[in-house]
Protein backbone atom coordinates (compact mmCIF):
# COMPACT_ATOMS: atom_id res chain seq x y z
CA UNK A 1 0.00 0.00 0.00
CA UNK A 2 2.63 2.40 1.13
CA UNK A 3 4.78 1.50 -1.82
CA UNK A 4 1.88 2.08 -4.23
CA UNK A 5 1.26 5.50 -2.70
CA UNK A 6 4.89 6.38 -2.97
CA UNK A 7 4.96 5.35 -6.62
CA UNK A 8 1.88 7.44 -7.32
CA UNK A 9 3.43 10.44 -5.63
CA UNK A 10 6.60 9.91 -7.56
CA UNK A 11 4.73 9.58 -10.82
CA UNK A 12 2.75 12.70 -10.07
CA UNK A 13 5.94 14.58 -9.29
CA UNK A 14 7.45 13.40 -12.53
CA UNK A 15 4.31 14.06 -14.53
CA UNK A 16 3.64 17.56 -13.26
CA UNK A 17 6.61 19.40 -14.76
CA UNK A 18 6.38 17.29 -17.89
CA UNK A 19 2.77 18.32 -18.37
CA UNK A 20 3.63 21.93 -17.70
CA UNK A 21 6.25 21.82 -20.42
CA UNK A 22 4.13 19.99 -22.91
CA UNK A 23 2.37 23.05 -24.21
CA UNK A 24 4.67 25.37 -26.05
CA UNK A 25 4.41 29.07 -25.36
CA UNK A 26 1.61 30.57 -27.39
CA UNK A 27 1.36 34.33 -27.73
CA UNK A 28 -1.96 36.15 -27.76
CA UNK A 29 -1.57 36.76 -31.49
CA UNK A 30 -0.88 33.09 -32.16
CA UNK A 31 -3.83 31.98 -30.07
CA UNK A 32 -6.07 34.25 -32.12
CA UNK A 33 -4.76 32.76 -35.36
CA UNK A 34 -5.21 29.21 -34.10
CA UNK A 35 -8.74 30.12 -33.02
CA UNK A 36 -9.62 31.09 -36.59
CA UNK A 37 -9.40 27.42 -37.60
CA UNK A 38 -12.47 26.55 -35.56
CA UNK A 39 -14.87 25.97 -33.97
CA UNK A 40 -15.65 22.57 -35.39
CA UNK A 41 -18.10 21.32 -36.51
CA UNK A 42 -19.78 24.40 -37.98
CA UNK A 43 -23.56 24.70 -38.03
CA UNK A 44 -25.21 22.58 -40.76
CA UNK A 45 -24.76 24.04 -44.24
CA UNK A 46 -27.79 25.67 -45.80
CA UNK A 47 -28.01 26.68 -49.45
CA UNK A 48 -30.80 29.14 -50.23
CA UNK A 49 -30.47 28.42 -53.96
CA UNK A 50 -31.60 24.83 -53.30
CA UNK A 51 -35.17 24.37 -52.12
CA UNK A 52 -34.47 20.93 -50.62
CA UNK A 53 -31.22 21.94 -48.90
CA UNK A 54 -31.12 20.69 -45.30
CA UNK A 55 -34.51 18.98 -45.60
CA UNK A 56 -34.60 15.34 -44.38
CA UNK A 57 -36.71 14.27 -47.38
CA UNK A 58 -34.31 15.89 -49.85
CA UNK A 59 -31.27 14.43 -48.10
CA UNK A 60 -32.62 10.87 -48.13
CA UNK A 61 -33.53 11.08 -51.82
CA UNK A 62 -30.05 12.38 -52.55
CA UNK A 63 -28.40 9.61 -50.60
CA UNK A 64 -30.26 6.99 -52.64
CA UNK A 65 -29.40 8.68 -55.93
CA UNK A 66 -25.73 9.03 -54.95
CA UNK A 67 -25.07 5.32 -55.37
CA UNK A 68 -27.58 4.72 -58.19
CA UNK A 69 -25.68 3.76 -61.34
CA UNK A 70 -28.88 4.01 -63.39
CA UNK A 71 -28.19 7.75 -63.62
CA UNK A 72 -25.34 6.93 -66.01
CA UNK A 73 -25.54 6.22 -69.71
CA UNK A 74 -24.44 2.60 -69.44
CA UNK A 75 -25.92 1.95 -66.01
CA UNK A 76 -22.50 1.17 -64.58
CA UNK A 77 -21.20 4.38 -63.01
CA UNK A 78 -22.60 6.23 -59.99
CA UNK A 79 -21.28 9.12 -57.96
CA UNK A 80 -20.12 6.53 -55.44
CA UNK A 81 -17.90 4.90 -58.08
CA UNK A 82 -15.50 7.82 -57.72
CA UNK A 83 -16.59 9.33 -54.40
CA UNK A 84 -16.35 6.27 -52.17
CA UNK A 85 -17.38 6.40 -48.54
CA UNK A 86 -14.56 4.04 -47.53
CA UNK A 87 -12.00 6.31 -49.19
CA UNK A 88 -13.12 9.55 -47.61
CA UNK A 89 -15.44 10.26 -50.55
CA UNK A 90 -12.63 10.12 -53.09
CA UNK A 91 -11.17 7.21 -55.05
CA UNK A 92 -7.54 6.82 -53.95
CA UNK A 93 -6.34 7.43 -57.50
CA UNK A 94 -4.06 10.17 -58.80
CA UNK A 95 -6.50 11.02 -61.60
CA UNK A 96 -10.21 10.30 -61.80
CA UNK A 97 -11.45 7.47 -63.99
CA UNK A 98 -15.00 6.93 -65.18
CA UNK A 99 -15.93 5.74 -68.62
CA UNK A 100 -12.67 7.38 -69.65
CA UNK A 101 -9.59 8.79 -67.90
CA UNK A 102 -9.94 12.30 -66.47
CA UNK A 103 -7.33 15.05 -66.27
CA UNK A 104 -7.96 15.94 -62.65
CA UNK A 105 -7.98 14.20 -59.31
CA UNK A 106 -11.26 13.30 -57.63
CA UNK A 107 -11.55 15.56 -54.59
CA UNK A 108 -12.93 14.30 -51.31
CA UNK A 109 -16.47 15.48 -50.61
CA UNK A 110 -15.92 16.14 -46.90
CA UNK A 111 -17.32 19.56 -45.94
CA UNK A 112 -18.23 20.35 -49.54
CA UNK A 113 -21.47 22.02 -48.43
CA UNK A 114 -19.51 24.96 -47.05
CA UNK A 115 -17.75 25.88 -50.30
CA UNK A 116 -18.81 28.67 -52.60
CA UNK A 117 -16.90 27.58 -55.73
CA UNK A 118 -16.88 23.94 -56.85
CA UNK A 119 -14.38 21.84 -58.72
CA UNK A 120 -10.67 22.59 -59.04
CA UNK A 121 -11.35 25.59 -61.28
CA UNK A 122 -14.57 26.74 -59.62
CA UNK A 123 -16.61 26.17 -62.76
CA UNK A 124 -19.81 25.93 -60.70
CA UNK A 125 -21.20 28.35 -58.13
CA UNK A 126 -23.48 25.93 -56.29
CA UNK A 127 -23.20 22.35 -55.14
CA UNK A 128 -26.24 21.31 -57.20
CA UNK A 129 -24.91 23.00 -60.35
CA UNK A 130 -21.62 21.17 -59.99
CA UNK A 131 -23.49 17.90 -59.48
CA UNK A 132 -25.08 18.16 -62.95
CA UNK A 133 -21.68 18.10 -64.62
CA UNK A 134 -20.54 14.53 -63.87
CA UNK A 135 -24.01 13.20 -64.76
CA UNK A 136 -23.78 14.68 -68.26
CA UNK A 137 -20.02 14.47 -68.92
CA UNK A 138 -19.28 11.73 -71.46
CA UNK A 139 -16.10 10.77 -69.61
CA UNK A 140 -17.81 10.47 -66.23
CA UNK A 141 -21.41 9.17 -66.23
CA UNK A 142 -22.51 10.03 -69.78
CA UNK A 143 -26.11 10.40 -68.66
CA UNK A 144 -28.75 12.81 -69.92
CA UNK A 145 -31.63 14.82 -68.55
CA UNK A 146 -34.06 12.52 -70.38
CA UNK A 147 -32.54 9.50 -68.70
CA UNK A 148 -32.64 11.04 -65.23
CA UNK A 149 -36.24 12.19 -65.74
CA UNK A 150 -37.33 8.75 -66.94
CA UNK A 151 -35.71 7.07 -63.95
CA UNK A 152 -37.45 9.39 -61.49
CA UNK A 153 -40.81 8.92 -63.18
CA UNK A 154 -40.66 5.18 -63.72
CA UNK A 155 -39.00 3.86 -60.57
CA UNK A 156 -41.78 3.67 -57.99
CA UNK A 157 -39.54 4.17 -54.97
CA UNK A 158 -37.70 7.13 -56.47
CA UNK A 159 -40.92 8.70 -57.73
CA UNK A 160 -42.35 8.48 -54.23
CA UNK A 161 -39.16 9.92 -52.69
CA UNK A 162 -39.23 12.71 -55.25
CA UNK A 163 -42.82 13.60 -54.45
CA UNK A 164 -42.01 13.75 -50.75
CA UNK A 165 -39.00 15.97 -51.35
CA UNK A 166 -40.49 18.39 -53.87
CA UNK A 167 -44.14 18.26 -52.96
CA UNK A 168 -45.24 17.21 -56.44
CA UNK A 169 -45.05 14.24 -58.75
CA UNK A 170 -41.96 13.95 -61.01
CA UNK A 171 -43.83 15.61 -63.85
CA UNK A 172 -41.61 18.59 -64.75
CA UNK A 173 -39.74 18.86 -68.02
CA UNK A 174 -36.57 16.83 -68.35
CA UNK A 175 -34.21 19.67 -67.51
CA UNK A 176 -36.18 20.58 -64.41
CA UNK A 177 -36.03 16.93 -63.32
CA UNK A 178 -32.26 16.88 -63.81
CA UNK A 179 -31.89 20.03 -61.72
CA UNK A 180 -34.08 18.64 -58.96
CA UNK A 181 -32.19 15.35 -58.89
CA UNK A 182 -29.01 17.40 -58.54
CA UNK A 183 -30.56 19.48 -55.75
CA UNK A 184 -31.42 16.33 -53.80
CA UNK A 185 -27.90 15.00 -54.41
CA UNK A 186 -26.52 18.30 -53.16
CA UNK A 187 -28.68 18.18 -50.02
CA UNK A 188 -27.13 14.81 -49.23
CA UNK A 189 -23.54 15.85 -49.96
CA UNK A 190 -23.87 18.88 -47.72
CA UNK A 191 -24.36 16.53 -44.74
CA UNK A 192 -20.85 15.08 -45.18
CA UNK A 193 -19.12 16.91 -42.34
CA UNK A 194 -15.76 15.57 -41.20
CA UNK A 195 -15.40 14.56 -37.54
CA UNK A 196 -13.64 16.52 -34.81
CA UNK A 197 -9.91 15.97 -34.66
CA UNK A 198 -7.01 16.15 -32.23
CA UNK A 199 -6.34 19.61 -33.56
CA UNK A 200 -9.86 20.72 -32.62
CA UNK A 201 -9.40 19.53 -29.05
CA UNK A 202 -6.15 21.47 -28.83
CA UNK A 203 -7.65 24.57 -30.38
CA UNK A 204 -10.58 24.58 -27.97
CA UNK A 205 -8.30 23.93 -24.98
CA UNK A 206 -5.95 26.74 -26.04
CA UNK A 207 -8.85 29.16 -26.46
CA UNK A 208 -10.22 28.17 -23.06
CA UNK A 209 -6.79 28.52 -21.42
CA UNK A 210 -6.89 24.85 -20.38
CA UNK A 211 -3.18 24.01 -20.39
CA UNK A 212 -3.68 20.49 -19.19
CA UNK A 213 -6.01 19.55 -22.02
CA UNK A 214 -3.84 21.48 -24.50
CA UNK A 215 -0.82 19.43 -23.43
CA UNK A 216 -2.39 16.27 -24.87
CA UNK A 217 -1.52 17.59 -28.33
CA UNK A 218 1.97 16.44 -29.26
CA UNK A 219 4.91 18.83 -29.21
CA UNK A 220 5.76 18.08 -32.80
CA UNK A 221 2.16 18.82 -33.83
CA UNK A 222 2.29 22.09 -31.92
CA UNK A 223 5.56 23.11 -33.58
CA UNK A 224 4.06 22.23 -36.96
CA UNK A 225 1.00 24.34 -36.21
CA UNK A 226 3.21 27.25 -35.20
CA UNK A 227 4.98 27.01 -38.55
CA UNK A 228 1.66 26.75 -40.38
CA UNK A 229 0.28 29.98 -38.94
CA UNK A 230 3.66 31.69 -38.65
CA UNK A 231 6.83 31.53 -40.67
CA UNK A 232 5.41 29.28 -43.39
CA UNK A 233 2.33 31.47 -43.81
CA UNK A 234 0.19 28.54 -44.93
CA UNK A 235 -2.90 30.11 -43.38
CA UNK A 236 -2.81 32.98 -45.88
CA UNK A 237 -4.69 30.60 -48.19
CA UNK A 238 -5.58 27.64 -45.98
CA UNK A 239 -7.68 29.90 -43.81
CA UNK A 240 -10.62 29.34 -41.48
CA UNK A 241 -12.26 26.27 -39.96
CA UNK A 242 -11.97 24.25 -43.19
CA UNK A 243 -8.41 25.43 -43.84
CA UNK A 244 -9.32 27.08 -47.14
CA UNK A 245 -10.39 30.59 -48.05
CA UNK A 246 -12.44 29.02 -50.84
CA UNK A 247 -10.58 30.96 -53.53
CA UNK A 248 -7.79 30.10 -55.97
CA UNK A 249 -4.04 30.10 -55.99
CA UNK A 250 -0.96 29.04 -57.89
CA UNK A 251 1.61 27.18 -55.87
CA UNK A 252 3.79 26.06 -58.75
CA UNK A 253 2.15 22.74 -59.62
CA UNK A 254 2.47 22.07 -63.36
CA UNK A 255 -0.52 22.71 -65.56
CA UNK A 256 0.39 20.71 -68.65
CA UNK A 257 -2.13 17.92 -69.09
CA UNK A 258 -0.08 16.34 -71.87
CA UNK A 259 2.54 17.85 -74.16
CA UNK A 260 1.02 20.90 -75.82
CA UNK A 261 -2.17 20.89 -73.76
CA UNK A 262 -2.74 22.90 -70.60
CA UNK A 263 -5.34 23.00 -67.86
CA UNK A 264 -6.03 26.74 -67.61
CA UNK A 265 -7.47 26.29 -64.12
CA UNK A 266 -9.45 29.22 -62.77
CA UNK A 267 -9.37 31.07 -66.10
CA UNK A 268 -11.27 28.22 -67.76
CA UNK A 269 -13.50 27.86 -64.72
CA UNK A 270 -14.77 31.43 -64.96
CA UNK A 271 -15.51 30.95 -68.67
CA UNK A 272 -17.42 27.71 -67.99
CA UNK A 273 -19.32 29.37 -65.16
CA UNK A 274 -20.45 32.23 -67.38
CA UNK A 275 -21.63 29.79 -70.06
CA UNK A 276 -23.61 27.53 -67.75
CA UNK A 277 -27.43 27.72 -67.82
CA UNK A 278 -27.30 26.37 -64.27
CA UNK A 279 -25.36 29.20 -62.65
CA UNK A 280 -26.96 31.28 -59.90
CA UNK A 281 -27.91 34.04 -62.31
CA UNK A 282 -30.13 31.56 -64.18
CA UNK A 283 -33.70 30.49 -63.60
CA UNK A 284 -33.02 27.52 -61.34
CA UNK A 285 -31.79 29.58 -58.40
CA UNK A 286 -34.46 29.16 -55.69
CA UNK A 287 -33.33 32.24 -53.79
CA UNK A 288 -35.62 35.01 -54.94
CA UNK A 289 -33.54 37.65 -53.12
CA UNK A 290 -30.54 36.94 -55.36
CA UNK A 291 -28.26 37.67 -52.40
CA UNK A 292 -26.46 34.34 -52.85
CA UNK A 293 -25.51 35.27 -56.43
CA UNK A 294 -23.25 38.12 -55.34
CA UNK A 295 -20.01 36.30 -56.03
CA UNK A 296 -21.22 35.12 -59.43
CA UNK A 297 -22.34 38.58 -60.43
CA UNK A 298 -19.08 40.20 -59.40
CA UNK A 299 -16.42 37.61 -60.14
CA UNK A 300 -13.70 39.03 -62.35
CA UNK A 301 -11.33 37.47 -64.81
CA UNK A 302 -7.68 38.29 -64.12
CA UNK A 303 -4.57 37.32 -66.10
CA UNK A 304 -3.27 35.75 -62.93
CA UNK A 305 -6.20 33.28 -63.00
CA UNK A 306 -4.31 31.22 -65.57
CA UNK A 307 -2.99 28.12 -63.83
CA UNK A 308 -4.71 28.90 -60.56
CA UNK A 309 -6.59 26.10 -58.79
CA UNK A 310 -8.88 26.08 -55.85
CA UNK A 311 -7.27 26.09 -52.43
CA UNK A 312 -8.23 22.69 -51.01
CA UNK A 313 -9.47 22.32 -47.46
CA UNK A 314 -7.08 20.32 -45.31
CA UNK A 315 -9.38 18.39 -42.97
CA UNK A 316 -8.91 14.61 -43.50
CA UNK A 317 -6.04 15.48 -45.86
CA UNK A 318 -3.78 12.65 -44.71
CA UNK A 319 -6.51 10.10 -45.38
CA UNK A 320 -7.20 10.88 -49.03
CA UNK A 321 -4.03 10.81 -51.14
CA UNK A 322 -3.01 11.69 -53.84
CA UNK A 323 -2.64 15.45 -53.77
CA UNK A 324 -3.12 18.53 -55.96
CA UNK A 325 -5.50 19.05 -58.87
CA UNK A 326 -3.54 16.64 -61.02
CA UNK A 327 -2.67 14.10 -58.34
CA UNK A 328 1.00 14.76 -58.99
CA UNK A 329 2.12 14.38 -55.37
CA UNK A 330 1.63 11.03 -53.67
CA UNK A 331 2.03 11.73 -49.96
CA UNK A 332 1.71 14.48 -47.38
CA UNK A 333 5.51 14.32 -47.05
CA UNK A 334 5.80 15.07 -50.78
CA UNK A 335 3.52 18.09 -50.36
CA UNK A 336 5.66 19.49 -47.56
CA UNK A 337 8.79 18.88 -49.65
CA UNK A 338 7.15 20.80 -52.49
CA UNK A 339 6.59 23.83 -50.27
CA UNK A 340 10.11 23.51 -48.91
CA UNK A 341 11.85 23.30 -52.28
CA UNK A 342 9.56 24.84 -54.91
CA UNK A 343 11.53 26.58 -57.61
CA UNK A 344 10.94 30.33 -57.98
CA UNK A 345 10.76 29.84 -61.77
CA UNK A 346 7.45 28.10 -61.24
CA UNK A 347 5.91 30.97 -59.36
CA UNK A 348 5.02 34.22 -60.99
CA UNK A 349 4.47 37.06 -58.60
CA UNK A 350 5.20 40.77 -58.89
CA UNK A 351 5.11 41.46 -55.18
CA UNK A 352 6.19 39.58 -52.08
CA UNK A 353 5.35 35.99 -53.02
CA UNK A 354 2.95 34.09 -50.80
CA UNK A 355 4.64 30.84 -51.74
CA UNK A 356 8.42 30.58 -51.78
CA UNK A 357 10.86 27.75 -51.11
CA UNK A 358 10.75 27.53 -47.33
CA UNK A 359 13.97 25.54 -47.00
CA UNK A 360 12.64 23.56 -44.04
CA UNK A 361 14.95 21.45 -41.88
CA UNK A 362 14.16 17.75 -41.55
CA UNK A 363 12.72 18.45 -38.11
CA UNK A 364 10.51 21.27 -39.34
CA UNK A 365 9.26 19.13 -42.20
CA UNK A 366 8.26 16.30 -39.92
CA UNK A 367 6.59 18.80 -37.54
CA UNK A 368 4.52 20.19 -40.39
CA UNK A 369 3.57 16.67 -41.47
CA UNK A 370 2.63 15.79 -37.87
CA UNK A 371 0.42 18.86 -37.70
CA UNK A 372 -1.29 18.07 -41.01
CA UNK A 373 -1.96 14.52 -39.82
CA UNK A 374 -3.59 15.87 -36.67
CA UNK A 375 -6.36 17.18 -38.95
CA UNK A 376 -7.38 13.57 -39.65
CA UNK A 377 -9.89 11.53 -37.70
CA UNK A 378 -11.66 8.25 -38.38
CA UNK A 379 -15.30 8.97 -39.16
CA UNK A 380 -17.93 6.98 -37.28
CA UNK A 381 -19.59 4.25 -39.38
CA UNK A 382 -22.63 5.45 -41.33
CA UNK A 383 -25.92 3.65 -41.02
CA UNK A 384 -27.41 2.68 -44.38
CA UNK A 385 -29.94 5.20 -45.66
CA UNK A 386 -33.53 4.86 -44.50
CA UNK A 387 -35.98 3.66 -47.15
CA UNK A 388 -37.44 6.35 -49.40
CA UNK A 389 -41.06 5.53 -48.73
CA UNK A 390 -41.46 3.25 -45.76
Amino acid at each position, binding site marked *: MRRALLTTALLAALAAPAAAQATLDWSEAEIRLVGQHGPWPPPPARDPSNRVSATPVGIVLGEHLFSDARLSGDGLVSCATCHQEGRDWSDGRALGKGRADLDRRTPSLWNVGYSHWFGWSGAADSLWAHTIKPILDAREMAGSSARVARLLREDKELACGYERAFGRKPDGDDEQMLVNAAKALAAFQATLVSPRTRFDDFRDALMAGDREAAARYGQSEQRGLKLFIGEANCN*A*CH*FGPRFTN*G*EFGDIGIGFFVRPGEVDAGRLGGIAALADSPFNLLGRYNDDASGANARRTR*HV*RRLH*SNFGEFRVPGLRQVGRSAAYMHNGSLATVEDVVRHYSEVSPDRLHSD*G*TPLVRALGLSAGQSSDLVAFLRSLDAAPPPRPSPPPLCP
Partner: protein
Amino acid sequence: MRLLAALVAFFVTGPAWAGCPLDLGRGAGLVIFSDHYMIAFRPDPLRIEVGEPFALVFNVCTKSGTAGELVAVDAQMPEHKHAMNYHPSIVAKGDGRFRAEGLVFHMAGHWEISIDVRAGEEIERLTHDFYIK
Protein backbone atom coordinates in the same frame (compact mmCIF):
# COMPACT_ATOMS: atom_id res chain seq x y z
CA MET B 1 -6.99 57.24 -34.02
CA ARG B 2 -6.92 57.94 -37.71
CA LEU B 3 -10.69 58.30 -37.64
CA LEU B 4 -10.47 60.72 -34.75
CA ALA B 5 -7.90 62.81 -36.59
CA ALA B 6 -10.10 62.84 -39.62
CA LEU B 7 -13.08 63.91 -37.59
CA VAL B 8 -11.16 66.64 -35.83
CA ALA B 9 -9.86 67.92 -39.15
CA PHE B 10 -13.39 67.86 -40.41
CA PHE B 11 -14.77 70.00 -37.67
CA VAL B 12 -11.87 72.44 -37.95
CA THR B 13 -12.48 72.93 -41.63
CA GLY B 14 -16.16 72.69 -40.85
CA PRO B 15 -17.97 75.53 -42.59
CA ALA B 16 -16.93 74.64 -46.12
CA TRP B 17 -18.31 71.12 -45.67
CA ALA B 18 -21.23 72.11 -43.56
CA GLY B 19 -23.78 70.70 -45.95
CA CYS B 20 -22.20 67.27 -46.01
CA PRO B 21 -24.05 64.66 -43.97
CA LEU B 22 -21.57 62.30 -42.37
CA ASP B 23 -24.18 60.03 -40.94
CA LEU B 24 -24.41 56.77 -42.86
CA GLY B 25 -26.70 55.15 -40.38
CA ARG B 26 -25.49 52.65 -37.77
CA GLY B 27 -23.26 55.30 -36.21
CA ALA B 28 -19.77 54.25 -37.19
CA GLY B 29 -18.13 55.45 -40.36
CA LEU B 30 -14.80 56.46 -41.84
CA VAL B 31 -13.99 59.80 -43.36
CA ILE B 32 -11.31 60.64 -45.90
CA PHE B 33 -10.79 63.86 -47.78
CA SER B 34 -8.63 65.76 -50.21
CA ASP B 35 -8.59 69.39 -51.31
CA HIS B 36 -11.79 68.89 -53.25
CA TYR B 37 -13.62 65.96 -51.75
CA MET B 38 -14.80 64.63 -48.49
CA ILE B 39 -16.04 61.06 -48.46
CA ALA B 40 -17.73 59.32 -45.58
CA PHE B 41 -18.07 55.57 -45.88
CA ARG B 42 -18.58 52.36 -43.99
CA PRO B 43 -18.60 48.64 -44.75
CA ASP B 44 -21.87 46.73 -44.73
CA PRO B 45 -21.82 44.54 -42.71
CA LEU B 46 -19.62 46.66 -40.44
CA ARG B 47 -17.16 43.88 -39.72
CA ILE B 48 -15.28 42.66 -42.79
CA GLU B 49 -14.59 38.91 -42.66
CA VAL B 50 -11.90 37.21 -44.73
CA GLY B 51 -13.49 35.65 -47.80
CA GLU B 52 -16.99 37.05 -47.20
CA PRO B 53 -18.67 39.44 -49.65
CA PHE B 54 -19.41 42.91 -48.32
CA ALA B 55 -20.52 46.27 -49.60
CA LEU B 56 -19.32 49.82 -48.95
CA VAL B 57 -21.79 52.64 -48.54
CA PHE B 58 -20.57 56.13 -49.41
CA ASN B 59 -21.48 59.71 -49.05
CA VAL B 60 -19.50 61.85 -51.49
CA CYS B 61 -19.27 65.62 -50.91
CA THR B 62 -17.28 68.30 -52.71
CA LYS B 63 -15.87 71.46 -51.25
CA SER B 64 -17.46 73.56 -53.94
CA GLY B 65 -20.83 72.04 -53.23
CA THR B 66 -21.26 70.66 -56.75
CA ALA B 67 -22.46 67.08 -57.02
CA GLY B 68 -19.74 64.46 -56.69
CA GLU B 69 -19.90 61.12 -58.42
CA LEU B 70 -18.39 57.84 -57.26
CA VAL B 71 -16.90 56.36 -60.43
CA ALA B 72 -15.11 53.23 -59.28
CA VAL B 73 -14.08 51.32 -56.18
CA ASP B 74 -11.39 48.69 -56.15
CA ALA B 75 -8.93 47.11 -53.75
CA GLN B 76 -5.58 45.41 -53.78
CA MET B 77 -2.98 43.97 -51.45
CA PRO B 78 -0.04 46.28 -52.12
CA GLU B 79 2.59 43.93 -50.68
CA HIS B 80 1.58 40.99 -52.86
CA LYS B 81 0.27 43.00 -55.81
CA HIS B 82 -2.93 40.99 -55.58
CA ALA B 83 -6.12 42.41 -56.97
CA MET B 84 -9.52 41.39 -55.69
CA ASN B 85 -11.03 38.40 -57.47
CA TYR B 86 -14.28 40.38 -57.70
CA HIS B 87 -15.29 43.54 -59.48
CA PRO B 88 -17.53 45.80 -57.40
CA SER B 89 -20.54 47.47 -58.99
CA ILE B 90 -21.75 50.90 -57.98
CA VAL B 91 -25.31 52.04 -57.50
CA ALA B 92 -26.13 55.74 -57.05
CA LYS B 93 -28.68 56.29 -54.33
CA GLY B 94 -29.15 60.02 -54.91
CA ASP B 95 -27.93 63.01 -52.88
CA GLY B 96 -24.30 62.01 -53.12
CA ARG B 97 -24.98 58.57 -51.66
CA PHE B 98 -23.59 55.45 -53.33
CA ARG B 99 -23.35 51.77 -52.66
CA ALA B 100 -20.49 49.60 -53.97
CA GLU B 101 -21.52 45.95 -53.91
CA GLY B 102 -19.47 42.78 -54.36
CA LEU B 103 -16.15 43.31 -52.58
CA VAL B 104 -14.33 40.31 -51.10
CA PHE B 105 -11.02 40.40 -49.22
CA HIS B 106 -9.92 36.81 -49.74
CA MET B 107 -6.92 36.98 -47.43
CA ALA B 108 -6.08 38.47 -44.09
CA GLY B 109 -3.63 41.38 -44.12
CA HIS B 110 -3.25 44.83 -45.63
CA TRP B 111 -5.78 45.87 -48.27
CA GLU B 112 -5.75 49.27 -49.92
CA ILE B 113 -9.04 50.42 -51.36
CA SER B 114 -9.09 53.03 -54.08
CA ILE B 115 -12.05 55.32 -54.45
CA ASP B 116 -12.36 57.18 -57.74
CA VAL B 117 -14.57 60.24 -57.66
CA ARG B 118 -15.28 63.11 -59.97
CA ALA B 119 -17.22 66.35 -60.01
CA GLY B 120 -16.69 67.40 -63.60
CA GLU B 121 -14.14 66.02 -66.03
CA GLU B 122 -11.27 65.00 -63.87
CA ILE B 123 -11.22 61.85 -61.80
CA GLU B 124 -9.45 61.95 -58.47
CA ARG B 125 -8.37 58.85 -56.58
CA LEU B 126 -8.53 58.67 -52.82
CA THR B 127 -7.29 55.65 -50.93
CA HIS B 128 -7.83 54.04 -47.58
CA ASP B 129 -6.06 51.15 -45.86
CA PHE B 130 -7.82 48.26 -44.18
CA TYR B 131 -5.99 45.77 -42.02
CA ILE B 132 -8.00 42.56 -41.94
CA LYS B 133 -7.20 40.08 -39.19
